[in-house]
């Protein structure tokens, strides 16, 4: 299937709606508002898409656990009216692994950033992908350490300015989806915040997948990265996303595209492989005999 067709397919899924309308307020802890994100920050769009996907899947908030790391991305969990865990920098996947193994009945979603997931937490990402425990990991890639004031990250594009690359970044970045795929993730997808419906649909598919699903969201740090690199206003930054993705649009909203690469979007990997917890339990019962196991 061509990439374009894949993308259209995910757009069509938008038609499959749950019978009650999505109201984001039903999913938020409104007493914590105003929220902490800068105006125009892409992370807010990602949060909306996630809650919308949760709505469309009719996931009960009581049964939802959101585990986040440290970063602007990590702060999102606090706004979700579910069981939320704001953990440590780089480790939300490891926390989520323990939580899901102890409570396979919960839907466990990880929210992480590019620094959180690929730098300090890279080891946990690849091992989670290998194990294939049923967790959905949503990585918000804004190419920068937003929270700590705009330092270089493992996804910063070449020549971009950050507070620790004052002369322009010369380190090559990770392709996070390729990394997750290489490590054995059974569901991998990428989407831009510009295409919120497609993003929501992708998240819905990731959440429904039985195994480790990894979703990279191309998000914008408008206030720090955007300003530092003169990428325009936040609407301009979001619009420029379409020049960095495949299939390409003709948009010429701003001179400099935010992303240097030509990113594939949509579902990139979908595979069937035994889910880790179920496989572990089944195997133990098989070897020991179900009767021998005492609860």
């Amino acid at each position, binding site marked *: 299937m061509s990439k374009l067709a894949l993308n259209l397919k995910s757009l069509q899924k938008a038609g499959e709606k749950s019978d009650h309308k999505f109201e984001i307020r039903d999913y938020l802890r409104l007493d914590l508002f105003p929220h902490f994100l800068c105006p125009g920050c892409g992370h807010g769009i990602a949060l909306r898409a996630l809650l919308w996907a949760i709505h469309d899947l009719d996931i009960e908030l009581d049964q939802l656990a959101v585990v986040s790391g440290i970063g602007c991305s990590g702060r999102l969990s606090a706004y979700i009216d579910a069981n*939320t865990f704001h953990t440590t920098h780089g480790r939300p996947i490891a926390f989520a*692994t*323990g939580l899901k193994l102890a409570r396979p009945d919960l839907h466990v979603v990880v929210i992480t950033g590019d620094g959180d997931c690929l730098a300090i937490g890279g080891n946990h990402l690849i091992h989670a992908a290998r194990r294939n425990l049923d967790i959905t990991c949503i990585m918000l890639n804004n190419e920068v350490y937003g929270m700590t004031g705009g330092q270089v990250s493992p996804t910063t594009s070449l020549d971009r300015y950050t507070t620790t690359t004052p002369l322009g970044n010369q380190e090559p970045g990770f392709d996070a989806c390729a990394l997750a795929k290489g490590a054995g993730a059974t569901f991998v997808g990428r989407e831009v915040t510009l295409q919120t419906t497609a993003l929501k649909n992708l998240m819905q598919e990731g959440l429904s997948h039985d195994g480790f699903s990894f979703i990279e969201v191309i998000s914008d740090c408008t206030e720090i990265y955007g300003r530092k690199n003169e990428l325009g206003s936040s609407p301009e930054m979001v619009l420029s996303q379409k020049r960095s993705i495949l299939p390409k649009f003709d948009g010429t909203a701003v001179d400099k595209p935010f992303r240097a690469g030509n990113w594939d979007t949509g579902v990139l990997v979908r595979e069937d492989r035994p889910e880790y917890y179920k496989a572990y339990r089944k195997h133990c019962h098989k070897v020991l005999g179900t009767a021998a196991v005492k609860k």
Partner: protein
Amino acid sequence: MSQMPQRQSLQGNQACALGAIAAGCRLFAGYPITPSSEVAERMSKELPRVEGVFVQMEDEIASMAAVLGSSMGGVKSMTATSGPGFSLKQEHIGYAALAEVPCVIINVMRGGPSTGMPTRPAQGDVMQARWGTHGDHPIIVVTPSSVQEIYQLTIRAFNLSETYRVPVIVLYDEAIGHLVDTVELPDPDSIEIQDRKWASGPAEGYLPYAADEDGVPPMPRPGDGYRTHTTGLTHLETGFPTQVPADVSRVIGRLLDKIERNRDAIEQYELTNCDDAEILVVAFGITARSSERAVNLARESGIKVGLMRPLTLWPFPERKMKELAGQVRHVLVPEMNAGQLILEIERLCPDSVTVSGINRFDGLPIDPGEVLDKIKEISK
């Protein structure tokens, strides 16, 4: 069905695993490291038999994180490690202390610093066990001296952790961890097991960090409808972050006070020949075994010497120590490090009492002869 106590020949680390299972531990996450690996190996065998989960994580940081994730899900959980791994776990031990997540950490001490001497015993983590993670924090450290006691104190570690919602460290050295001895495993029904208090009552207006009389808040279980927020940021009774100075002093103050106000229930020690003692030996772990022998031998030659063996290293049995310090004229602290526990003893002794140590950090246990010689020298 009630059973008779069973006698089994067990290695210290295996006794630890069986104690954990008896205490209700149903998830172990760890990373292999000498001299603790037998704990993990035994857990990997036992847990599938009780519908629990064993997982070997990618490193010690992940192991500790998985233990916390599991405990926050409501399952009693544990990890086991040694020096280098214990260092890696520290950030998450702090998270457990602040977010009040019950968990048990087994630290089987080997020679340090750094990779040190993986197969040699040491007692060099006395201070790290107390202060390894940053910031002021509550923590409990128990320290067994025998294989039997590893079994019992592992159970107690879970009970304390559940009762006070603090991380509890079981600290012992390689010599005891690898010692094989006959252990009496009690009838499971006779073992006292404590479970954490679970939140109950209406979800509306529920405050996850509002403490009861004992200073400990009941814990919300995911799925029970409370939908709370857990964070490593300093947080209010609501669970959400604060930096307001008055609020911070209140909430951190309560955390620290949780241990202080319950000291009597937490502290444990054992006294041998202390009634008329003029010289007091304070020792724990393998060193307490040598010291006990030395004290008995010294008594045979008429020296009035006694032994205090703390079973809780932190909080240190402070009141008892002060009381004994008022009675003796000399305190001797043998330990397999360059002098860590002695700092606490010196703090608790009046100027009239002389405090001295026997220190070894060469990977060899301190033998009874060494302690006896020192006792004799002091008694002159």
